[in-house]
């Protein structure tokens, strides 16, 4: 059943799509988690989605949809191992383990702040969509903008993965075993 206050023009369809999109984002975030906790976290986080989408404390349906997507999207940050604490020997346990062998390595910190063209375009599209969603557009228009957003995010992910592969190749060429050298 669609949440109260949801738009009449295909609101149920939109809420279903928002849920599926949010579940996809959470599923993607959970890939970086260890096997032992992955299913548990996926179940926990996806169980919250319908409650956010039906939250009576948020008045407008598009804002609830946005909140749901933000909740899901931010889990990629929550599923990442912390930057320094877990890497230092003897650091207090924080519930997360180092990334599995074969998973995507993190980029060097200096690279994180660099405004690449894809990031600038992605940020501009995200801001544009947020303004549209918050201003009350729903139904098919929201679908179109969400589609454009997803396309841009997909292109950004492609560009980023190529960029990361390039960085890894060059850093491996320079420093074959950085962690061993530190010890």
């Amino acid at each position, binding site marked *: 059943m669609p949440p109260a206050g949801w738009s009449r023009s295909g609101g149920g369809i939109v809420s279903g799509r928002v849920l599926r999109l949010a579940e996809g984002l959470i599923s993607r975030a959970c890939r970086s988690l260890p096997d032992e906790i992955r299913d548990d976290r996926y179940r926990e986080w996806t169980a919250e989605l319908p409650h956010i989408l039906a939250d009576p404390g948020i008045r407008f349906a598009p804002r609830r949809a946005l909140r749901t997507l933000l909740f899901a999207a931010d*889990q990629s940050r929550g599923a990442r191992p912390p930057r320094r604490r877990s890497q230092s020997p003897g650091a207090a346990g924080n*519930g997360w383990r180092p990334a599995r062998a074969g998973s995507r390595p993190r980029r060097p910190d200096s690279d994180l702040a660099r405004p690449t063209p894809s990031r600038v375009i992605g940020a501009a599209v995200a801001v544009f969509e947020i303004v549209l969603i918050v201003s009350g557009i729903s139904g098919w228009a929201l679908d179109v903008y969400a589609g454009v957003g997803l396309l841009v995010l997909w292109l950004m992910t492609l560009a980023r993965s190529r960029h990361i592969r390039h960085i890894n190749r060059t850093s491996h060429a320079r420093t074959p075993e950085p962690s061993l050298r530190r010890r």
Partner: protein
Amino acid sequence: MTAPLERVLRAFLEDPAAARYGYGLMKAAKLPSGTLYPLLARLEDEKLVTSAWETPTEDGQRPRKYYKLTGDGIRVARLDLAALPAKVTAAPSLTRLAPGTTS
């Protein structure tokens, strides 16, 4: 203690016996999900918080996971939060003194 941790502990201590869901804690602590859940995992690791799945309901909704402070968690949270205001209130009282005045 970091500000997010402080907010989470304060949210828990509003009603220490109550079971809190992740989204409820997010709203109470005003924290994004990507900050809250790692904190909860850390607190659970340190045995300050315990978690459990709710009983599945008949309407087919997925069971949610809820969190509660343990006895140790309540004690530690109260002690740590009680130690905080002293640091916060000490600084403003100094700024209130006008030059040349004594307290």
